[in-house]
């Protein structure tokens, strides 16, 4: 187990470094940062000044190693637009996005796992069809459009929930639903397929033949094994949600990293954009790492093979 954990850790670090190099290069090559920062109507001298001041005139390799060395110490430079330390703003906004992600994941899991289990117990029944319809519809509804529908009904027509801001926990409900429902089809399908597989296996037949209570068989014997792949999916989905929060946070004016990313893109705030992409990517890497370890712990075949 330890050897597996160390090996996976090494790979994760390598992935993080590669992601930072690729995104740094991508952002630098996509446009001239000095021109973007100077904005419209800037003179050539202004652009030249910014280029010198921020060191954009140096080679890409020098720029990257300089940036990476600082980033390792938690210093992502200063926001060009806000004139404050990037790390300060980032860590102030991060809890909002983490809360949103956790709530969205909770919503997705609470909705999809019971439905997936019920669908697997009675394949082709009414509830199975209902779950399938929900999955098919869920996958086809773009989250920003679903968010607008939620605002229209829950926010404006029935006045149940606030439609923007991040002052109270009520502000998080609609964004969490809008962000989380998109992940439900995947969870539901995986739970259903896993349960169908497990329920047809020999050890479940044995457990039933022993005369164990049906609910004990279902939860203690079947679900426990069927849920293993769902655990790693949950980590991956949470990672996607952090990235996808840019759309949802922008719609609901939720002051998290997603909205910050959106604002930074509009303001050509390079340092901020780079830091956000790296932090979101690293969160994803950490999440998948945890999921891998959890999987290896739950399923010994993974860590041996």
């Amino acid at each position, binding site marked *: 187990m330890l050897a597996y954990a160390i090996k996976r850790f090494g790979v994760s670090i390598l992935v993080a470094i*590669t*992601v930072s190099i690729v*995104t740094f290069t991508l952002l630098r090559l996509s446009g001239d940062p000095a021109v973007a920062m100077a904005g419209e109507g800037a003179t050539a001298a202004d652009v030249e000044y910014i280029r010198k001041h921020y060191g954009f005139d140096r080679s890409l390799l020098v720029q990257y190693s300089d940036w990476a060395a600082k980033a390792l110490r938690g210093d992502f430079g200063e926001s060009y637009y806000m004139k404050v330390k990037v790390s300060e703003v980032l860590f102030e906004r991060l809890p909002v996005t983490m809360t949103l992600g956790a709530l969205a994941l909770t919503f997705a899991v609470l909705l999809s796992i019971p439905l997936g289990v019920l669908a697997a117990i009675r394949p082709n029944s009414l509830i199975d069809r209902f779950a399938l319809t929900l999955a098919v519809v869920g996958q*086809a509804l773009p989250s*920003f*459009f679903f968010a607008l529908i939620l605002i229209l009904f829950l926010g404006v027509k029935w006045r149940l929930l606030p439609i923007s801001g991040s002052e109270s926990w009520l502000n998080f409900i609609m964004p969490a639903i809008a962000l989380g429902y998109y992940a439900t089809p995947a969870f539901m399908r995986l739970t259903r397929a896993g349960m169908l597989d497990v329920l047809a296996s020999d050890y479940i037949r044995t457990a039933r033949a022993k005369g164990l209570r049906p609910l004990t068989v279902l939860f203690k014997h079947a679900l426990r094994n069927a849920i293993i792949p769902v655990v790693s999916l949950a980590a991956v989905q949470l990672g996607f949600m952090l990235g996808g929060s840019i759309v949802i946070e922008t719609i609901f004016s939720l002051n998290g990293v997603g909205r910050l990313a959106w604002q930074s893109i509009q303001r050509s705030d390079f340092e901020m954009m780079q830091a956000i992409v790296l932090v979101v990517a690293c969160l994803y890497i950490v999440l998948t790492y945890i999921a891998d370890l959890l999987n290896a712990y739950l399923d010994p075949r993974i860590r041996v093979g």
Partner: protein
Amino acid sequence: MAVTHTDSRLPSAEEILEPSPAAKLRRRMLGHVGITLGGGVFLVIVAMALLAPWIAPHDPYLQDLAHRLIPPIWHEKGTWEHVLGTDQFGRDYLSRIIYGARISLLIGIAAMLISGIIGTAMGVVAGYFGGRIDMAITFVITTRLAMPVILIALAVVALIGSSLQIVILVLGFLIWDRFAVVMRSATQQVRNLDYVAAAQAAGCSTLRIILTEIMPNVVNSLIVVATVEVAHAVILEAALSFLGLGVQPPLPSWGLMISEGKGLMFFLPWVIAIPGTALFLLILSVNMLGDGMRDVTAPENRN
């Protein structure tokens, strides 16, 4: 008419009556609700896109400020002149929806083709050769998965400047991961089968084995992933355009139309409901088609 069989090598009656595998597949496809329904809706949208200049009642770009925000026909004040109403510039909504199908389909299919070529090449090579090559490609896939798609797409499009071509290229170069993952495992499954070994023994070149022995046997998975990615690209384009960093006005992108109507949605919900429904139907039909293809081509996965 009576036919007498004298040659015993001729097929038996059962064999003649037995439909060919292709015919069986066709029959299964036509009997599948998802494929017929999804395929039907998809064909209608494709027809809309192809025939746009002939079926659109108005010029989708023509502004008519005297006739702004006419409601669609099911409202009291709706007119047959503008069946789906007009937008805030007086442009005919139905015509914009019809032309919008072109944008969604073009971006969806083009981005899928680019990502499909990249992902399939990587997946097949990794799956076929295995070993160090597989390790390297798996690492590239893992790295790509760690990069947040929407965030990077938005940042790159904002820096380069947004246009239809840029959106297609950025999406195409970002969403190849699923192709690579699925093609890799599909190739691993057929790599060790006898007919591949036979081709190797016969001295076929690697390229030939991949193209003529491996590819035909992974094509079913390829089609399923392709549909998923068309839907994925359509959603991403809509989201980018909604945020103002995808297709630029005055192009009638459905995502852009939702974005433009956002401010009016509290009073006139149909302004966002119409392009939203169009988007929903397109993605739904593509997904149903893909799910159906998976059902009929892999009968063992039907449950």
